[in-house]
């Protein structure tokens, strides 16, 4: 695949101005070694929604933009507060202030993707093993078993408690003062989350992702866009699939993002889970939730839909999964190719660490591969997104009509038995709509697949409506 060859050029060895280690969650010291990347990274504070330059006003509410979302999420925290996402610099503070956190008790697992939490996991994991945990020991190595243990330990704890743990982990910058438990600051995603501090190689650190990828590798989902998985399977599927040892560099350029930009379960009834046992397609994920039971034996669900009483699933930002179904993934194009394109800076090329919408950087993000004028490329994306948005609105209309029909059927006394198949249709319809609506590329990451999923959503919503009306006429007939 010649288009990627040049990306595989060797890096010139870098000169370390300061030492960074496995506890260096603060990006500032890294910035002394890599000023360009750090400078870019700091740009993620900019936000096209609010003022440029780090204004911290919250981004627009999706609930107000799309009022049907309130009905979709009725009875769930998302119906209280749900906003446009923005740059990485905001991830921790946006989570701290969302009314989903301030008004609802959330789990500590939320921080898995919103903070530079790995040294904290390691510390807690090591502490469980009983040893004394000094800053030196923490800094020594990544120690995956300890990280996993810590992750398991805090996943179902309260959000506030886990948040407090962050500042108890030494970060090599904050100096401990006697009697002050504050040993490090809490940071949003930081260099250490994607880079090995010794070699600067990219790596993945998130337990949820590592476990998820292992499940995926052990499934029989054909994943032509992930050749290392196929290779691992072909060579006998020994032990566990580990992205950090098995994946190609090009795969890693997507995996670092797949650590967080995925569908998950994250609440108090189960450890944080990425539902990839059957594969990465929308149906595969649904099947895993369908087949999951909580420890108390109850069937898995995310929330009880308030208007109708149906137990339903919530889809969250499945960028990695949708991208996997698209032509870019199939052609070996990684998240980083578009969201962190190479830029010439003086005599060298660096990856833009201003992770953002490629549409703000079409020249570098797209024109390396597509030799069409910027305006043309923008129009292509607009067209794909417009088609998707139109279908989302169509599916949303069907969905709200469905809610009305179910509510009416319940009002006219439909039995639970009669409602059972209708609730199944409702769950499917809502899952599909949410899957594409909560994905953040408005269909771009896999244009036909997005339309297909929305078509199914419409189908199930409208089937549910017809079934309600049928009940209705059946019941009136027998009245």
């Amino acid at each position: 695949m010649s288009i990627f060859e040049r990306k595989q050029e060797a890096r010139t060895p870098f000169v370390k101005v300061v030492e960074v280690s496995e506890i260096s969650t603060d990006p500032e010291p890294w910035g002394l070694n890599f000023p360009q990347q750090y400078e870019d990274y700091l740009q993620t504070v900019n936000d096209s929604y609010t003022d440029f330059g780090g204004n911290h006003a919250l981004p627009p509410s999706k609930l107000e933009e799309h009022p049907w979302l309130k009905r979709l999420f009725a009875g769930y925290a998302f119906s209280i507060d749900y906003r446009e996402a923005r740059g990485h610099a905001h991830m921790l503070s946006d989570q701290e202030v969302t009314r989903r956190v301030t008004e609802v008790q959330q789990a500590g697992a939320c921080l898995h993707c919103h903070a530079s939490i790995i040294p904290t996991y390691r510390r807690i994991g090591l502490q469980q093993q009983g040893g004394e945990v000094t800053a030196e020991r923490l800094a020594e190595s990544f120690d995956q078993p300890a990280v996993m243990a810590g992750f398991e330990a805090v996943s179902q704890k309260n959000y506030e408690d886990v948040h407090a743990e962050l500042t108890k982990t030494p970060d090599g910058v904050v100096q401990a003062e006697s009697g002050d438990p504050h040993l490090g600051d809490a940071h949003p995603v930081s260099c250490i989350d994607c880079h090995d501090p010794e070699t600067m190689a990219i790596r993945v650190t998130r337990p949820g992702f590592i476990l998820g990828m292992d499940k995926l590798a052990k499934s029989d989902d054909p994943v032509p866009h992930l050749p290392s998985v196929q290779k691992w399977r072909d060579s006998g599927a020994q032990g566990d699939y580990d992205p950090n040892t098995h994946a190609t560099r090009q795969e890693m350029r997507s995996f670092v993002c797949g650590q967080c930009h995925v569908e998950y379960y994250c609440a108090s009834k189960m450890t944080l889970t990425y539902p990839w046992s059957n594969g990465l397609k929308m149906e595969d994920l649904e099947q895993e939730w369908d087949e999951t039971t909580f420890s108390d034996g109850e069937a898995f669900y995310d929330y009880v839909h308030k208007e109708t009483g149906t137990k339903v699933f919530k889809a969250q930002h499945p960028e990695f999964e949708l991208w996997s179904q698209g032509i870019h993934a199939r052609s070996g194009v990684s998240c980083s190719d578009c969201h962190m394109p190479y830029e010439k800076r003086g005599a060298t090329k660096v990856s833009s660490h201003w992770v953002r919408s490629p549409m703000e950087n079409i020249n570098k993000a797209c024109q390396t591969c597509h030799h069409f004028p910027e305006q043309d490329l923008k129009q292509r994306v607009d067209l794909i997104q417009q088609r998707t948005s139109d279908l989302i609105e169509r599916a949303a209309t069907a969905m709200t009509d469905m809610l009305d029909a179910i509510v009416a059927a319940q009002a006219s006394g439909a039995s639970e038995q009669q409602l059972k198949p209708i609730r199944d249709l409702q769950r499917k319809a809502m899952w599909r709509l949410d899957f594409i609506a909560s994905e953040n590329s408005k269909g771009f990451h896999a244009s036909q697949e997005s339309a297909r999923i929305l078509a199914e959503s419409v189908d199930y919503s409208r089937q549910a409506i017809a079934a309600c009306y049928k009940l209705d006429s059946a019941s009136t007939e027998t009245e």
Partner: protein
Amino acid sequence: MMSDEESQRNDRELGDAEGSDKEVPDDSSPGRGKFWGGRRFGRGAIVFALCLGLLAGLGVFTFGYGKGASYMSNNPETCVNCHVMQSHMDSWLQSSHHQVAVCNDCHLPHDFIGKWVTKADNGFFHSLAFTLGGFKDPIQIKPRNRRVTQGACIDCHQDLVHPLLPETAGGDMLMCVHCHTSVGHAAR
């Protein structure tokens, strides 16, 4: 020679970036639009470019780099004196044409006058751009230079591509790179 109308037709070759170079303002390179765009060249501008270009070709703008004069050579290495073209060089080395064509075989007209005018002209603008910065990254070929490469392909492959040639002189034809995108160098 092409009439203006016909050359425009040619420029409209579907899917080629140049088709809309007239509409899309190239805001990344201030100061260049004045001179650029083959169709807008008057005789005066050509002479102007020729003079300045020859000067530039002798290294006026890039003298500080000490390599300006190497532009006149035929060695691909001279092109990569400007690191901005390293990726082209790297992928040219792996291209089907590495054995048969150097940069100048494709990027200069194959007739004497055209060759030197183009050298001078590009020498000027490359140097200017390299010195002042602000050019498009990835670099984008200009319509006129694209016609040069098209001409180079035809010149070498005349017999083979006979059916692609227009029925009448100056007529419309497809750009070779419409299909052969990675000939020369895949990476841009």
